[in-house]
């Protein structure tokens, strides 16, 4: 009977996920990419709950029905080798489930790796997001602005984040707008996001990067295009330009508050673009490399 209690607990825990009083961050999307992911997550939770229930029910049935205390003393369990049809079902149903999930997963993969639908009419806003121990630097080349540890974004445009790192591998993550992606020192990765509505969101580095990792967060504010334009103008009127010395100072390990500059560090410390490798897997690394050879040799602008 204790088993039932354990099962009950599990069910309660799942229910808490599904129906928690306030929606969990990841399941409360504010952008199209996060919505794709939240839908996938919810769909898979329901499907998996079904599997869990089937297994639990089968187990409970077997344990109740075939306990030795319920059977005659001289009962000898039969020898059963296996049955082709039963085993075919045991293989077939999981195959169908996995096939369905693969189908959904592959579609979502292409969705989250592209400009979200409904945003194609305007050029995406490109933001270079680079991490250093333990800060985030956001460069807006188009607006000619650089911020530290906070991010202002307009709601009407798709966002294209160019991610890289001055130091350990980090992961750029704004859960309510979409999933994360790594920022690395020797290449630039691209993350496509968009915000549907104005609001304030939590953003952070999700990948462990040393002592200051826990506090390696940033604030995200999505605002209407008009407000965004106003902010850009205001920055140009009030903020100081970023200089190479100032930027070197910012890169020193430690934590900083929010900062705003005009200009971007990309002018004097460009992103490690140009050899944007596709992740080399052992098998296809050879052909990958042929393409990158000509780009090598200018890769050491990561440290200080």
């Amino acid at each position, binding site marked *: 009977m204790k088993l039932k209690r354990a099962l009950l607990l599990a069910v309660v825990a799942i229910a808490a996920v599904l129906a928690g009083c306030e929606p969990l961050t990841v399941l409360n999307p504010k952008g199209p990419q996060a919505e794709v992911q939240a839908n996938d997550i919810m769909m898979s939770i329901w499907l998996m709950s079904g599997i869990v229930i089937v297994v639990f029910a089968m187990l409970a049935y077997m344990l109740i029905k075939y306990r030795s205390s319920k059977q005659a003393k001289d009962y000898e369990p039969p020898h059963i080798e296996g049955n082709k049809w039963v085993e075919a079902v045991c293989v077939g149903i999981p195959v169908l489930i996995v096939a369905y999930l693969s189908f959904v997963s592959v579609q979502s993969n292409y969705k989250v790796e592209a400009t979200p639908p409904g945003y194609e009419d305007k050029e995406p806003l490109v933001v270079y997001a680079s991490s250093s121990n333990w800060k985030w630097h956001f460069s807006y080349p188009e607006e000619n602005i650089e911020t530290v540890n906070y991010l202002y974004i307009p709601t009407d445009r798709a966002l294209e984040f160019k991610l890289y790192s001055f130091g350990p591998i980090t992961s750029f993550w704004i859960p309510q707008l979409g999933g994360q992606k790594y920022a690395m020192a020797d290449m630039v990765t691209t993350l496509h996001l968009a915000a549907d509505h104005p609001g304030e969101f939590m953003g952070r580095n999700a990948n462990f990067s040393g002592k200051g990792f826990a506090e390696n967060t940033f604030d995200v504010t999505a605002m209407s295009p008009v407000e965004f334009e106003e902010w850009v103008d205001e920055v140009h009127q009030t903020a100081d330009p970023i200089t190479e010395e100032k930027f070197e100072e910012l890169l020193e390990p430690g934590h900083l508050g929010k900062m705003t500059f005009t200009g971007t560090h990309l002018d004097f410390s460009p992103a490690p673009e140009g050899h944007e490798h596709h992740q080399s897997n052992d098998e296809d*690394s050879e052909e990958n490399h042929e393409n990158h050879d000509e780009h*090598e040799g200018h890769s050491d602008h990561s440290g200080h």
Partner: protein
Amino acid sequence: MKIDHSLPLEYSTDENRLKILGFWIFLGAEVMLFATLFASYFILSGGTGDGPSGAEIFEITPVLIETLVLLTSSFTIGLMVHAMRLGRQKAMMGFFIATIVLGAIFLGVEIYEFVHYVHVGAGLQTSAFSAILLTTLGTHGAHVTFGLFWGICILIQVKKYGLTPRTTNKSFIFSLYWHFLDVVWIFIFSFVYLKGMM
């Protein structure tokens, strides 16, 4: 110990057969080891940083000498096993010694080659390419070096005890090891040197 006389001496006892199978499995692990090194080499071969690339530092002469010497040693170790099966201890030891001498020559040339690389500015710390090159070659070279000492140990035992199930077993396993190193070298020759020089 039961000796099965229908089989060659090196296979004649249970223990010997276990050892030979075990060694084959070990070679399977070695294949993975070198496969990983090769994969890493291919990935990092473009990562020359500020250092030279393969085409700039490879020299054909020492590589050809190494290849020739090692291939010959693989042949002599084959003759060693043949002589051993015929029970001709003297000839067997002669071929064994020839193999070890050739191995030593190979090693000497390889050391020369390493000195050359460091000399032209491709040391261990120069770039990812130079590091993986020296590591891959060095791993093979270390295997050869280990093989030389191991081979000498076996040779002494053959001299001391003659061709017994134990010594023939050891010699046979050594020949497997040596052939394997030769195969690895052929891969190094084709995919590191030839590809690098083209």
